[in-house]
Each structure stands twice: as structure tokens, then as C-alpha cells.
């Protein structure tokens, strides 16, 4: 499954994908709020300077500009850090994009704890929870560079608002196999198992896969599901797996409140109530540190997932 240890940040794949699809989609406009270098939309800017709009440090206005642009037939992608896209501009996204259900794509980079050294003010562990509450919002959280490109492509091909979540840190490429297919709303079983289901999203997918392989040696056969589309959630896939394994662990680089863990609990409690353990940021703010040190401390690396699954199934 995992290839030669290649690591790429999903934000980088995002920027490259915009530059790639800008060729075939002349109505694609990329907006940024003074962070083009960091969000990697600078790649697009270089190639299509006339279709890159730097709004300055004014995210609320940027979301409104994107809304207005979409009403003239353009396909705007509004880009900034997750903290500002989903946090600061929440109400603009809700009222100016979500309520009129406009064809605006939001590219939120630097999501989660792996923002690293910048610390808690910039580590957004709440964006999925916020975006999930907006009716009609599609939420995509890719696990690697391959999936990030697929997300951008699918988002541009569909009509309606989409929130895409990307990370700062380089993460292993796991979806470069020949049988990888991406469809919005469809999860993927990456490893079949019988004892416990690990439903993972974003960079936790590679942690979960690695943990599942190690658990195998201990006699625990874990099923690993990659949920890239957090909304609409692939409820059928998760329910079927839960019916088989009777125990579910969710794993995400996000608060355990309201994100994938929340979504899976909601779906299972209504359809297939089984015990669930949520791996994620456990209702605390983050802190400064390297991405890898933070993943270790907050038990989101492969060892952290391994230990927590082991404790749960014991």
C-alpha cells in the first residue's frame, strides 16, 4: 500500500492542482489574503497573474468577494489558513456562501496541530466542526498529495460550496496505487479487518495504516477506512464495517468534538450503536513545537494511534 516513503504536504499538492486545472478551467479565480506563499496558491499566481486576486489581510471581505465572483459565472477558490477561513470568516461563509448555496470553493491550509511552531492561535482544530453545521457544505479532508489533487479536481467539477482542508507538514503519499479512485461522498477501505474499525481522515490515515499493521502482529485485526469526504459522510460504509467489527475508533487531526469523531458517532448512534473511541485533540488548545513532536505528544502519530486502539479493544 505505502510507497517508497515519499512525503509531500497537501497544501503543496493543492497549489499545484490549482495551477494545473487553471489551464483547462478559464473561469477559475484564486483569492488569497496575503498568504499566497504559505497556502501555495503562489504557484497559480505565477502562472495566471490575472486570475489571482490578493485581497489583503481581510478574510471576511475575501469570502464576500468570492460570493460575488461566483454570481458572475467565475469559479472562485478562496484560500487562507483554516483558522481564518472557517474561524474568523465563519459567518461570511455561512451567510454569503452557504445560505445562497453559491459555487465557491474554500481552500483552507495549515489546518490542525501540525501548523507547528506558530502555536495555538494558528492551530485550527475546530474547522471541520464549524463547517459541518452549514447546510449544503461539502467538506473534503485529503490524506495525502494524491488525494488533495483529486479533491481540487472534484470540487471544481461540482456545483456548490466546498470546504477543502489541507495541512502544512509533509505527509506520506499513500494513495498512489493503481486502484485508487476518488469520489466525493465515498470512503475507502484501505485494509480489511474483523476486530475493530479505524475510521481515519487526513494525515491520520497514514498513522492508522501503520498502527493497523503493527496491531496485526499482536493479533488484533483492524479494518482501516479512509474518510476524505467528511460531509456528506459515507454512512453506509461505516455502518457496514461497524456491524462486522462491533467497535469503532475515529482518528483525526482535529478536536474530538464535532469533527469526524462527532460525525461518526452521530451516524452510528442512529444506525448501528457500537462503542466508539475518538482519537483527536481532546478539547485543549495546541502549543508551539515541531509538527512531529506535536503529533507524538497529542498521540496522533502511528504509535499514539496504536496505543489508543490497543487500550480500547483490550
Amino acid at each position: 500500500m505505502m510507497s517508497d516513503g515519499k512525503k509531500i504536504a497537501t497544501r503543496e499538492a493543492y497549489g499545484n492542482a490549482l495551477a494545473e486545472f487553471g489551464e483547462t478551467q478559464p473561469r477559475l479565480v484564486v483569492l488569497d489574503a496575503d498568504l499566497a506563499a504559505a497556502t501555495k496558491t503562489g504557484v497559480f499566481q505565477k502562472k495566471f497573474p490575472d486570475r489571482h486576486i490578493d485581497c489583503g489581510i481581510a478574510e471576511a471581505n475575501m469570502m464576500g468577494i468570492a460570493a460575488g465572483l461566483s454570481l458572475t459565472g467565475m469559479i472562485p477558490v478562496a484560500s487562507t489558513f483554516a483558522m481564518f477561513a472557517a474561524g474568523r470568516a465563519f459567518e461570511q461563509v455561512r451567510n454569503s456562501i452557504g445560505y445562497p448555496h453559491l459555487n465557491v470553493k474554500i481552500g483552507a491550509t495549515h489546518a490542525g496541530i501540525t501548523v507547528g511552531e506558530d502555536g495555538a492561535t494558528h492551530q485550527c482544530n475546530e474547522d471541520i466542526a464549524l463547517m459541518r453545521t452549514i447546510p449544503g457544505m461539502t467538506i473534503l479532508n485529503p490524506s495525502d498529495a494524491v488525494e488533495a489533487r483529486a479533491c481540487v479536481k472534484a470540487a471544481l467539477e461540482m456545483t456548490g460550496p466546498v470546504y477543502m482542508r489541507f495541512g502544512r507538514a509533509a505527509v506520506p503519499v499513500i494513495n498512489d496505487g493503481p486502484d485508487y479512485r476518488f469520489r466525493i461522498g465515498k470512503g475507502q477501505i484501505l485494509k480489511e479487518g474483523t476486530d475493530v474499525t479505524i475510521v481515519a481522515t487526513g494525515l491520520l490515515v497514514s498513522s492508522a495504516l501503520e498502527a493497523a499493521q503493527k496491531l496485526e502482529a499482536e493479533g488484533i485485526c483492524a479494518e482501516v477506512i479512509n474518510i476524505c469526504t467528511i460531509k456528506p459522510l459515507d454512512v453506509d460504509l461505516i455502518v457496514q464495517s461497524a456491524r462486522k467489527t462491533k467497535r469503532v475508533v475515529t482518528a483525526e487531526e482535529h478536536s474530538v468534538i464535532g469533527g469526524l469523531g462527532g460525525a461518526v458517532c452521530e451516524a452510528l448512534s442512529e444506525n448501528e450503536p457500537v462503542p466508539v473511541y475518538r482519537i483527536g485533540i481532546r478539547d485543549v488548545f495546541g502549543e508551539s513545537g515541531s509538527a512531529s513532536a506535536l503529533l507524538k505528544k497529542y498521540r496522533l502519530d502511528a504509535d499514539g494511534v496504536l496505543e489508543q486502539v490497543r487500550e480500547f479493544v483490550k
Partner: protein
Amino acid sequence: MDNAELMRHANDVRKGILTAVHGAKAGHPGGSLSAADLFTYLYFEEMNIDPKNPDKEDRDRFVLSKGHTAPGLYAALAYRGYFPVEDLPTLRHLGSYLQGHPCLQHVPGVDMSSGSLGQGISAAVGMALGARMSGQHFRVYTLLGDGELQEGQVWEAAMFAGHRKLDNLVVIVDNNGLQIDGNIDDVCSPNPIDKKFEAFRFHVIDLKDGNDMQQIRDAFSQAAAVRGKPTAIIAHTLKGKGVSFMEGKAQWHGKAPNDEEYEAAMAELERIGEA
């Protein structure tokens, strides 16, 4: 259309506002009435629109950034032929398409959902930018309240529009001087409004009487000739204009007339209409 005819339409729009708000038993008559002449001029004279084809691509756009004055917009749209005038009293009722604040998806002729103050102007700026980027020639108008200028997003949008020299954008401020909590100068003064827009690189037009049709005409004619910068029209208006007991009174910002008040207001407008 001459001024007398526009004034007759404005009088109808005022009646529509009262009928809608009375039917809803709630809503915002004060700021709808202050802007009634502006709504009328825009929809009956200024804008390139077609009520039979509300979505025609090259139409001029209007965003009601002060979305709570939806009754004013709806009345203008109804009398202009976008939907039946008889539907106005269904405003704010369950099941009616006439939502309490403008809704893009449900109301014919509404170009953008709005109501959360400060957001409409950004969308209007985005439309003006989109027109330029896609080589379309329509113009974009947006109406703001003077109280709304307290929202920081207004100035983010103004900074962007000035910086981008969006001369297809006209921002109109309904400067009636009153907001829910009282006089704008007592609550948190946005004055001087003209100087602020000038500082944000707008061409500013001081519309001394925003309830006078000829002066409104002159202001929009001037705006049409502006090149290289966006225009802000600061329209000095009277809140509640046209209904004597509502005029200049903050308490009529967001209150519906009872049956008796409604009859009195309508009678007053009938008399103006006949004069």
C-alpha cells in the same frame, strides 16, 4: 421616465412597504421608507434589467447590503413586475417566498442574499470585479445603512474596491441618521462618512436630499460618468419618509404599524398620490 411618474411609483412603493410590514406584523418600515425613492429610481430608471427575465446575464446588479429593509426592495420589485403586488402581505409568513431578509434562491429579482450587515457590499464588490474579469459591462449597485458603516467589513470592502479602481461599482449610503438604539452620532458615529469614502479612494457624491427625485437623478448621472474609481453616493434621507408619524423616529426602525396606524399611513400616502 419623468420625475412625476417616478414619484408616483415611489408612492406605490411606500404603500407596498406598509402593506408588507403590516401583513407581516413585523419588519423594518423606517429604513425602507427612507430609501423608497432610491429603490424606485434604481428599479424604474437607472438599472438595465428585465423583470420578465430576472437572470439575464448582462443585467445590472443590486445588492441590498442593509438587508433588513427587504420590504422596500420587495415593494420595488413587485411594482416593477417581478412578482405579484398581492404577495407583499405574505412577507415573513411561514411558506412565503418573501423571507424576512432578501433570499437569492427564492425571490425573483434578488441578486444576492443579505441581511447580516457588512456582507452585502463585499458581494457587490465581487460582482463588480467579476464583471471586469469576464469582460462584461454591467454595473453593480449596493445600498448600505449609515449604521451599517459601523461594521468593519464595510471598510475592508471599500479598501478593496478603491484599490482595484472598480468604476462599475456604486455604493449608496442611506444616511437617515438613525439606527435601532438611536442617533448614529450617539451610538458610535460613522461620521464624517464622505471623508472616509474619499480616503478609501472613492468618488464621493453628496446627495443633499435623497428623497428628491431630481437630486437622485443628478447623483446617478454624475456616478455614471466616473472613471477610474468607485462611486459612493451619500444620500441624506429622512427615516420613515412619507408617513408623518414615522418620520425621523428611531422607534419605527423595526416595528410594524397596527391596523389603525396602517390605515392612517395609507390614507396619508393616498393624499400624496393624488396631489
